[in-house]
């Protein structure tokens, strides 16, 4: 699948030598990259490579040990609180309140992100109709099947139409058919102008992104569009690109 970016864009995410150290362990090692507005940017890497740590810094959740960056126009070091107002986030565990109903979850997040009360009701109905589970409005989230939870979690993350949405391994544990459906949702969001920053360890999903970066041991070892990377390493799939990079990293050690 190919997804086109509109021309005339600026950077919604910028990172310069962003570093995070925990004691002697360097989780994120001076990464530098940009993400353009409207892009679908894949942040790839093996488990433990530092993706989640890097993302937490971009979301304003964690303070960088050194380095700088801006997200949605706000400085990571100085204004993490303003960043939070302008982004959406979907966690690995989908993170919905299981004891609340579907619409109650949406209302909660709508309220937190400042959507006016009068509007929330309409937006909830609209969203549920689009997703195709308007009739399940009053169901407890804990009784939803996994694929639906995933869709709901994503929708809750972009409910307030943020500039950027961060997705942390959003397709974990879901079957391939559901994964493809999910990526349709991502495309829809992107068409609406929301920049999508998605981390994943599924290399095939990299094909769906405009550009990807691959993190190995805290550093970004590759940053380009999937097509260019495949050409550079003379391989057919992103899996193989990753394999090449992993081998290089091992060889260095």
């Amino acid at each position, binding site marked *: 699948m190919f997804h086109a970016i509109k021309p005339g864009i600026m950077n919604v995410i910028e990172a310069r030598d962003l570093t995070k150290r925990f004691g002697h362990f360097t989780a994120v090692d001076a990464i530098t990259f940009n993400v353009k507005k409207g892009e679908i940017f894949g942040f790839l890497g093996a488990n433990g490579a530092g993706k989640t740590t890097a993302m937490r810094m971009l*979301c*304003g*959740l*964690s*303070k960088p040990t050194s380095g700088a960056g801006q997200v949605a126009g706000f400085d990571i070091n100085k204004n993490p*609180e303003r960043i*939070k*107002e302008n*982004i959406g*986030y*979907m*966690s*690995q*565990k*989908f*993170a*919905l*309140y*299981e004891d609340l109903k579907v619409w109650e979850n949406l209302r909660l*997040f709508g309220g*937190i*992100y*400042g959507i006016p009360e009068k509007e929330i009701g309409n937006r909830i109905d609209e969203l549920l109709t689009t997703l195709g589970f308007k009739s399940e409005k009053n169901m407890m989230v804990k009784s939803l099947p996994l694929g639906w939870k995933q869709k709901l979690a994503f929708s809750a993350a972009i409910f307030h139409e943020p500039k950027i949405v*961060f997705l942390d391994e959003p397709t974990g544990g879901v079957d391939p058919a559901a994964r493809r459906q999910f990526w349709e949702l991502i495309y829809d969001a992107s068409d609406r102008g929301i920049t999508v920053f998605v981390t994943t360890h599924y290399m095939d999903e990299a094909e769906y992104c405009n550009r990807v970066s691959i993190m190995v041991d805290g550093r970004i070892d590759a940053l380009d569009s999937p097509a260019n990377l495949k050409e550079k390493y003379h391989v057919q799939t992103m899996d193989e690109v990753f394999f090449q990079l992993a081998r290089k990293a091992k060889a260095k050690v």
Partner: protein
Amino acid sequence: MIILLVLPVLMILMFGFAISTEIKNARFAVYDPSHDLATQKIIDKINSSEYFTLDTYIIDPSQIETVFQKGEIGLVVEFSENFYKNIVQTGEAQILLIADGTDPNTASTLVNYVSRLIAAYQLEQMVLTGKLPYQIDVKVKLLYNPTLKGAYTTVPGVMGLILMLICAMMTSVSIAREKELGTMEVILVSPMPPLLIILSKVIPYFTISIINYLTILALGVYVLDVPVEGSFILLSLLSLLFIFVSLALGLLISSLVRTQMAALLGSVMGLMLPAVLLSGLMFPIENMPLFLQVIAQFIPAKWFIAAVKEVMIMGLGVGSILREMAVLGIMAIVLITLSLRKFKTRLE
């Protein structure tokens, strides 16, 4: 891992030392209008026993009841006038043992011990003089709790325990659950201020504990016949303070753990167990070895239960519980500051 090895040791020590229903060095006061040989001998006999230590000679009889209020005296021995003469001549010698009934178990034990000592004195006299002396009439008067109702000490104790349970344990488990499920992360990324997040987790249990407080009080008064001698408002303020301390403890625990299990374990082992054993609820603190007594000072429940007894059962006012309130107040401030800081730094 270490917990599994250290915990049994701690438990044996705590149970072994704390569960001592023996009295040691209980302080007693004397009101002695006679000041004669017999009274002196009896006083010495009591004082020299390992169970008792003479604390005060009361001069003014009106002080007899008030001497208990500081909370250090467990027993007052009051002799009748012309004691010795009465033993020898008329058989009207009387000793009145006045005990603090707010802790019925201790009161009974103290009274029993002293009675035995007095009886031993009489036996000695008999042996010495070779004749049967007149009996010393020993009467017992229990203050605050004349019928020695156990409920007088259990209601304040249960109140403290329940408030701590609801506030500390439930709050910490609730926050830990959100951490486990991942919803905490999502909330933290949102523009919701951390203070508001904390408040939102704390308010439900605060409300529940207020309701519990009122329920326990109502049941205590109407079903168990435990009086509220002192000011209800004072009692409520005191309880509010304790609730704050417990909530802060719950927050602190939640910032140190990552799973609900750990929160539960931490609350039970770190709060409930010490509170039950060392707060004076079951076992009098004065009887414990020094190091346990020191530890007991750090347990909020100890101060709360003591203050509740003073207000509820003894009917005392703000003045006498100033110390307890100050301690609880300081604990609240320290704990709240600590847990707020820990909560924020966990984000880093």
